[in-house]
Every structure is written in structure tokens, then in C-alpha cells.
């Protein structure tokens, strides 16, 4: 079966050409310059990165981080108890619940954000209902603001948190819990000192998936934030499809990648620390 090894080649070559090469090119491009008509000029300049820290984009970066952190925390608070519940029911029900969580995950962000537009817009379900009930006379502005974007992000990214947390809850050694109970721990004590620390790798993985997805997101903010909420993803998208300043767009995307890599590195630190606490087992 020596020849079998060659079977992997076409896919590997494909990914090298259409995945690695393009990503590498984004990196190179971030040092190039933009010509007057949006054409690309080969050079080596750091000015694109300098612009990233311009107050205008600094504010966008800050807004993006703020929304991403808020989204991650909310997903964790909402998702953890759900994942915990899934592990408490029978195996058959577990798979049904997991399927129910994964189905929305496969429906694209565009359609899922649109569903909220139907509900929240000024002639939407909520406003129509409240007006019929006579509770309000003028429609409330529920869309095109930061809370709407956070709602959309939490809604679309929640499965990213639930699934890894579920996996870690499913895998951790339940005997430790029994030991804690035998030693007289209350359920809360057992949860805080055993369950939560031992499921930290899942929490970290979920948080990273949510965080990384939300900093690169432009669909939800575009749909539910309108022109009011502009995030890093929207600015990048606009540099490529609107403003046609590709080198600057490349520099911004590169910052996005750096941020993501930094987080994944932190994730490995967390996993290491907690697996060391478990007696050096590999996680």
C-alpha cells in the first residue's frame, strides 16, 4: 500500500494552491501600497499597519472587541447550563438535543440575522404586537443599534459554545464528583471546585470559537447594525469590495489573524494548566 500515500496529494496540492497561497498573499499584500485608482503597487511599507491604529479605526477595533467580549460572556452564561442539562438526560435524548443545537448552526448567518429583522423591524412582529395591544403608539427602534448586533451574534454563535462545553462535560471523570460528595461537598461546592475547573478546556475552546467568529463577523453587524454599527469585519469587507484599498484591507485582516492566533495560544495555555492539574493527562 506504499502507493496509497499519493492519494492524499491532489487534496493537499489543492489546499496549498487555493488556501495557503492566498492567505500568504494577504500577508505580503499588507506591505504593498495602493495606487490612485486602487491598483496594487509592490513595495515594502508599514504605513498600512500605521493606519490600523488611526483613532478612526482604533474606535472600530475597540467596538469590535467590546462586542466580541460581551458576546462571548453571554454565550458562556447562556450556553454552559444548557450543555450541562444535555449531559443529564438519557443518551437518546442527548443526541436529539445536540441535533437540535447543530441544525441552526448550519443555516447561514444571513438567514438567521434576517429572521431577527422580521421580528424587530419597525413594522415587525414585536412592534406590531405592542401597537395592537395599545402599549406603544410609535414603533420602537429595536434594530440598527449595538444591543441588536449583540443579540444577533449571541443567537448565531451560541452553538459554538454549547458543543465544546458539552464535549468536555461528557468526558470529565465523574468519580471525582462522587469523591467530593462523599467528602461532604454541597452540589454548589462540587460544581465550583470540581466540574467547572475540569471543564475549563471546553469553556476555553467554546470561548475562542465564539470570540474569533465574532471579531471576523460582518454579516450580522451589516444586517442588524445597519450603518450605525461598523465592526472590523465591515471595514475589511468595505476595503475589498467598496473602497478598493486592498493593502489596507489586508493589513486589517492580518490584525484579525494575529488576534485569533493570540487567543488560540492562550487557549493552549489554559488547557495545559488544567490538564497539569489533572495529573498531566493529555487533553
Amino acid at each position: 500500500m506504499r502507493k496509497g500515500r499519493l492519494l492524499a496529494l491532489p487534496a493537499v496540492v489543492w489546499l496549498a494552491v487555493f488556501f495557503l497561497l492566498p492567505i500568504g498573499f494577504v500577508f505580503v499584500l499588507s506591505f504593498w501600497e495602493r495606487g490612485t485608482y486602487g491598483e496594487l503597487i509592490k513595495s515594502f511599507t508599514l504605513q498600512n499597519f500605521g493606519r490600523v491604529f488611526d483613532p478612526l479605526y482604533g474606535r472600530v477595533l475597540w467596538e469590535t472587541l467590546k462586542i466580541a467580549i460581551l458576546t462571548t460572556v453571554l454565550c458562556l452564561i447562556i450556553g454552559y447550563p444548557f450543555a450541562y442539562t444535555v449531559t443529564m438526560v438519557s443518551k437518546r435524548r442527548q443526541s436529539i438535543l445536540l441535533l437540535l443545537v447543530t441544525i441552526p448552526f448550519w443555516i447561514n448567518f444571513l438567514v438567521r440575522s434576517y429572521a431577527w429583522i422580521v421580528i424587530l423591524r419597525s413594522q415587525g412582529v414585536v412592534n406590531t404586537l405592542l401597537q395592537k395591544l395599545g402599549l406603544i403608539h410609535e414603533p420602537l427602534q429595536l434594530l440598527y443599534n449595538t444591543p441588536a448586533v449583540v443579540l444577533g451574534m449571541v443567537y448565531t454563535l451560541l452553538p459554538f459554545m454549547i458543543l465544546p462545553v458539552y464535549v468536555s462535560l461528557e468526558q470529565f471523570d465523574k468519580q471525582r464528583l462522587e469523591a467530593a460528595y462523599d467528602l461532604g461537598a454541597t452540589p454548589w461546592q462540587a460544581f465550583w471546585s470540581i466540574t467547572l475547573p475540569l471543564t475549563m478546556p471546553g469553556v476555553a475552546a467554546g470561548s475562542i470559537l465564539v470570540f474569533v467568529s465574532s471579531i471576523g463577523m460582518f454579516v450580522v453587524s451589516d444586517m442588524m447594525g445597519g450603518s450605525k454599527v461598523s465592526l472590523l469585519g465591515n471595514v475589511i469587507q468595505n476595503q475589498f469590495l467598496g473602497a478598493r484599498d486592498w493593502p489596507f484591507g489586508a493589513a486589517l485582516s492580518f490584525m484579525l489573524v494575529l488576534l485569533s492566533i493570540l487567543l488560540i495560544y492562550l487557549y493552549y495555555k489554559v488547557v495545559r494548566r488544567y490538564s497539569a492539574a489533572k495529573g498531566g493527562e493529555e487533553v
Partner: protein
Amino acid sequence: MKRALLAYSSFILLFLYIPLMILALYSFNDSRINAAWKGFTLHWYVDLFQNEAVIDAFWNSLLIALVTTAAATALGTLCALGLHTYKQRTRTMMSGLMYVPILVPDILMGLSMLLVFSQLHWELGKLTLIVAHITFSISFVVILLSARLASMGKKLQEAASDLGATPWQTFRYVTLPALLPGIISASLLTFTLSIDDFVISFFVSGPGSTTLPLYIYSMVKRGITPEINALSTILIGMVVILMILSEKFQTKGTDGRKGQLPF
């Protein structure tokens, strides 16, 4: 405590599904302007099927998804089979690398391919869409099938060889039939990913290659109408059916283990 958690979880499921249900419900509402319920109608669906742009987008999506599925499933299956013959360490490393395209933000994948296509002077259209869709699908196929191959073990293949089967016969009559449900599951997943993709398609599509999600986006930008609800409902329906089918095949003939997708 358990009851409270169960109640809480039902609430979360409602939070996940109610918006989608409302979206679908209002595709049957006989009112163009607002959300007041004016009665049941199939009017918006009839409109869709008479709208040439929608029909075009549908055929584009279907063509792209079919070609993507065939190519990505073939490339991915071969790759998984190839990786399976590697030594444990190389295999672990390679399958780790296969996660990278899944973890990279869609926006970066889309714009990086746009860059390369424009440098190569490829005209943006169906071809660039197909290339992009194949690129993001391969990893999913490799990961699903690698897990399946790993769970199959080597006993069956060894038994076949002991009984005098040639490597080709072993593959044709032992490995392939055992792998088939996995291949079907992976191709259904690829088809879903392709037909449903918005972000990457947004960057690499050109005039005349609008797909269903791209068409929905342009409709939303022009104004909210019940036709968008109808089209979104059709898309959701397709994704749900395909995912349930894929799930069925994924666990078929194994001990219930599945490829760990990185959620």
C-alpha cells in the same frame, strides 16, 4: 434542580427556533407591509417561482453545489484514504492541519481567494465560486472520513488480504462498501455547505453567478418583502432535510462515533 435546568433548556431551544419559525410563518402571511396576520397565502411562493432572477439563482446554486460536492468528495475521500496509510504521527499532524481551513474566519478565506483570482485575472463567476466552495469543503470531508476509517480498524482489510484478495479487491469489496455511508454523509454535508454559503461567495462571485444566499442578501438590501421570507424558508428547509439525512448516514454502520468537527 434538574427540573429547573430542563425548563431553562427548553427556553433556550425556543430562543434558537422561534425566530426561524416566525420567519417561516410570515412567508405565508397575506400582507406585504407589516406583521399583522392577514390570512394564509402561497402567493409569495408563486411569485418566487415566476421570478426569473430567483430561478437563475436557484440553478446557479444547484450547479455549483453539485460540482463542488463531486469534486470535494472525491478529493477528500482520496486524501483520507491516503492519510490512513501514513504513520500515526504524520497522520495526527496532517489531520490537525486539516482543521485550519475550518478555523480560519470565512471573511479572510473569501477575500484571500478574491485577491488571488484577481491577480490571476480569472473572471469572477461560477468557476471561481466552485473553486472557492471546493476549497472550504475538502477539510470537512477529510475529517469525517478519517474518523470513519479510524473507527473501522484494520481487521477487515487484513482478513481480506489473508484470504488472498489483491489490494484493489480489498479496497473495492471491503474498504469502499464500509466507507460508503461516510462518503454519502460527507457529500450531503458538502452539498449543504455549498448551497448555504454566503460569506465566501460574497467575495468571489461576479455578475451572472448570483446564488440563492447572495440573492437573498440583495433582496434584503432593497427592502423587506415576504418573498425574502419565502426564499429563506425554502433554504432553511433544504438545509434541515440535508443535515438530518447526513446525520443518519454519519453514524450508520459504526459504533456511533463521529468525526469530531471543531465546534
